[in-house]
């Protein structure tokens, strides 16, 4: 099968949330000796960006996006072990997590998926993340963005603390801070000096591209 045809079938299978098809097609790409990095970029990630478009236009909702991301991950699990060396490049790097005290992580997961669908490299710290971890990982991995989420009013203050920690260490300018979640508003983002706020995951990635000057 033609390489491009295979890539487009993989994209389609991700979009259609068919994890078994994605697995079969990724196996096939390896058998045919296609560079797994290319399959990830042109097949899996392209498929996820189709999903992201459908979410933006209101055709897909959270259930479809989550299920498609399972299919994406099934493909990644097959291809990743075959990548010879990590690609280095001027890739956008993101550290993301749900702030300490809160375990609601659907919103965070969605932003992560959307980031991956545009090819950002994401360091996911999970939920209930100690505030220092955001700062430490951002420094260590030389991230462009620190993304924080919470669904609870009691943990909102942690976002301000992270920004204050960056200021204390004199590294506030090295990172763009993006926040989101149920109780968060633009007003709150302005108050604590975050660089961006967005109402949903699609808008978050748009905001990040805008801040990075990527079209």
């Amino acid at each position, binding site marked *: 099968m033609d390489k491009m045809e295979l890539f487009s079938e993989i994209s389609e299978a991700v979009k259609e949330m068919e994890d078994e098809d994605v697995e079969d097609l990724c196996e096939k790409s390896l058998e045919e000796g296609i560079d797994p990095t290319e399959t990830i970029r042109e097949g899996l990630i392209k498929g996820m960006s189709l999903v992201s478009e459908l979410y933006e236009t209101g055709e897909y*909702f959270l*259930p479809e996006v989550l*299920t498609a991301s399972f299919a994406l991950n099934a493909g990644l699990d097959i291809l990743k072990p075959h990548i010879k060396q990590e690609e280095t490049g001027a890739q956008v790097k993101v550290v993301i997590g749900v702030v300490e005290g809160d375990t609601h992580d659907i919103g965070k997961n969605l932003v992560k998926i959307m980031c991956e669908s545009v090819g950002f490299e994401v360091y996911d710290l999970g939920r209930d993340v100690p505030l220092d971890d955001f700062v430490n990982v951002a420094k260590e991995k030389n991230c462009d963005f620190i993304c924080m989420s919470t669904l*609870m*009013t*009691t943990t909102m203050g942690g976002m301000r603390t992270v920004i204050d920690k960056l200021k204390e260490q004199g590294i506030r300018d090295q990172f763009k801070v993006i926040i989101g979640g149920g109780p968060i508003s633009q007003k*709150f983002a302005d108050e604590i000096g975050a660089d961006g706020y967005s109402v949903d995951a699609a808008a978050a990635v748009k905001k990040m591209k805008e801040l990075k000057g990527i079209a």
Partner: protein
Amino acid sequence: MEGTDYGNGLIVPKDELTPLERSKLMDEGKEVDRIQACLDTGETLAPMIGVGVDEYYHSAEKMVELEEYLYDTFHGDGAGLSTTLRGMAEAMGAEISYAKNRTAQLKTPALKLKEIDQAKLVDVDKDGRLPIVLDALAQVKKKLGDRVPVSGTVTGPFTVAAMVLGTEWLLVGMLKCPDKIKQLMDVIVENNNRYIQRMIDLEVGIGFADPVSSTDLISPEQYREFSLPYFQKNVDFIKKQGRGCGLHICGTSRKLWEDLAKTGIGLFGLDNVESLVEAKEVLGPHMAIQGKVPPVDILNRGTPMDVLMAAKESIRDGFDNPGGFVLTSGCQTPLGTPIENMHALIDGARIFGRTPIKREDLM
């Protein structure tokens, strides 16, 4: 509070009726002194009586103490207790984590998708915290029921399912194993009915909270397939016994309203992100509406004057709803909300909701 002077001539007049008198006269279609106003209360207000949130969840005595305190302090138009969002799921086997200074969170779901066959029917007298809440509800009804309408809140079946499986797994399960999800929903309907029967026997009002049914999470089609039919079964169970109920959905819900108008519910509480004017058009002919002072930016983080102004705006948009209007916040009162702001919400109804209300006075 009666007599509070907010400046600019905004002095709080005295209530002329108790909340129960007001409610009864309204039911008879008679004139009352002002529109109704309620605080959206619950575990987040436990610190107001010096009690940790975790302790509150497990003590009928503290639940009753808080309701008495809230009524004596604010004289809002309702008192009541909720199973809390995770209460039914906990009774079905979910593990919940409790802490002193925050609301409870789901720690471990009760079931994996492949374990749905094991979904269990609850014993409301034994399982989880359900017996505690029912005990407290009976006491609140006894202590405050002669002055204020008392109600209980139960969680909408779809949100219960989210807490039983974990929200992410529920959402994925709808696509991967829809029949299994529907099987679980049937069990939840029965569990809710068992609890609802107790509320009916206690002669308290009944409300549903169903945040996971928001169109922020699922599509209207998914709502119609996986949530609405099961909610309807609970509503029908209540209506069959000659009683009514209300519903609150957090976040966006506009695309569900045409369906909700047909369910037979008597009250819908909308989130502050939705429009009261639009709700009045679509839902107004069928039910009362309550809303929608923004809970975080205004009630929790604003000044008393901000709250008053938001209350004024809600009253202006909602007071002439054909099915009636209740002033409240767009969602639960957050932990640590200043008491002055809570007073200001009810005072908003006393100042701007005093009858007769003229729209032009509220511009």
